[in-house]
């Protein structure tokens, strides 16, 4: 009964559907029950639009507040929140914009949104652990077949046909006045937060495909097959950058970060 009332109430707020499980009343100031309910619809939409504006501040600056806010409102109307935390709302905003006709005028927008989502994720994720080199050396020698890397929880990969990192950077306060960003050239980026600050780092094709591979298959042996001799250069680099923050042995509780050993 309560569940049905709540389901109907939120469907009314999001989709304007009628409520039969409870009888809403007009208020004392002469506003009808339907209009009172609309105060909630308006408030929910405003909350979600504000959340998107806070998650995607550079995109909002790039396309202008009016265009962004209209786009956000359209997205909100079609995407009721199903997340517990407001911080998790809007992950599909970039995909939505890719398929949305008016965004064709600003083709750089979807990649910029994807980059900002990655930045936002990194900003709020767990702090990185230090990699335990000593334990890794032992495990790699004795149990290489069971060794799986743990990637930093905050790490995301973004690839774009233009320098989306430069587009992001030129909206930051430290960008020199009047200087135009050079956006020509595709880019592959790693977004992560090794310490206090979020890093947006361009990487080469080999590093990018290594990380793509690790996200799908974190095993050491598969990585060696992929990289061949280059593993000796690329793997230490990935650890040094903090992209890989630990390891674990398959079918084992043991994980090689300094917190768990």
């Amino acid at each position, binding site marked *: 009964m309560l569940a049905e009332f709540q389901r109907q109430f939120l469907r009314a707020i999001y989709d304007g559907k009628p409520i039969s499980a409870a009888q809403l009343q007009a*208020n004392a*100031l002469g506003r009808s029950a339907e209009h009172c309910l609309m105060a909630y619809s308006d408030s929910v939409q405003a*909350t979600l639009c504000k959340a998107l504006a806070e998650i995607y501040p550079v995109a909002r600056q790039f396309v202008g507040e009016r265009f962004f806010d209209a786009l956000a409102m359209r997205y909100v109307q079609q995407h009721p*929140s*199903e997340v517990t935390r407001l911080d998790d709302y809007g992950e599909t905003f970039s995909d939505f914009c890719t398929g949305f006709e008016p965004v064709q005028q600003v083709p750089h927008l979807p990649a910029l949104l994807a980059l900002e989502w990655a930045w936002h994720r990194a900003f709020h994720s767990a702090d990185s652990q230090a990699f335990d080199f000593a334990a890794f050396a032992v495990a790699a020698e004795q149990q290489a077949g069971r060794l799986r890397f743990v990637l930093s929880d905050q790490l995301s990969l973004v690839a774009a046909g233009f320098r989306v990192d430069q587009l992001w950077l030129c909206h930051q306060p430290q960008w020199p006045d009047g200087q135009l960003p050079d956006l020509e050239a595709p880019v592959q980026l790693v977004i992560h937060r090794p310490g206090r600050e979020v890093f947006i780092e361009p990487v080469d094709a080999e590093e990018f495909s290594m990380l793509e591979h690790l996200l799908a298959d974190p095993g050491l042996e598969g990585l060696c097959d992929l990289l061949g001799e280059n593993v000796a250069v690329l793997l230490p680099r990935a650890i040094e950058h903090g992209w890989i923050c630990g390891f674990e042995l398959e079918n084992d509780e043991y994980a090689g970060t300094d917190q768990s050993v």
Partner: protein
Amino acid sequence: MQNRIEGVGLGLRSCHYQHILSHKPRVPWFEVMTDNYMGAGGQPHQYLEQIRQRYPVTFHGVGLSLGSAAPLNKEYLHRLKELVDIYQPAWVSEHLCWCASDEYNSHELLPLPYTELCARHLAERIDQVQNCLGQRLVVENLSSYVTFAESEMSEWEFVSLICQLADCDLLLDVNNVYVSATNHGFSAADYISGVPAKRVREIHLAGFEDQGDLLLDSHSRPVYDAVWDLYRQALERVGPVPTLIEWDNDIPGFEVLEAEAEKARAIAAQTAGEVSCAG
């Protein structure tokens, strides 16, 4: 960590982190919006750690959805418990509301019909939270924009019943009382007289938006004169209770919040003087 909560505190907002850390203002305590720290790490926690070292804090949440029919969100509750263990707030408060159905989340504080059944449902869930946190929960009265024909009692009777059933404390939001009283045509003074005075642990003050045929609890303005008057009445009833200025939208400079806090302090001092003279 010191944890004495008295006088008039302010809601901690991220736009004021830098100001607080560099100017170290004389604010007796800050109320921390727990939902802003549900994330696992990063800057919000680095700032909060530094601020917590210097100031007492209370926790205030909006996402627990105490009144939802669906089971309590265990993951959310456990994270809240972790945060309580880390930052050791003087107390934790939440709203007497629901936010989510089994399909959608509104991220809004939504009302329930004031029935005994709903009061029992809320009380049961408050009890679960209290058991998990190992402390009394402080629950806040809502401002609301709708009422239901199904209600069997007044809002203050509903609130009192829940506090009694769950043996929890009350955060009396005086602005919310005023907003709901105006929207739904009941007496704000009756509300203040009807709440269980001994359970009131904290008072909230904020500004609303007047839409003509509806007051919106916007937390975007200074406290209205009518709400200051009601605050006076509330203090006369419940005694010198810690009070908090809330401001969440169009957040002004820190000095504006301090000026609002100063007004509240003056009213509290005046009321305490009058009460002790009369006594």
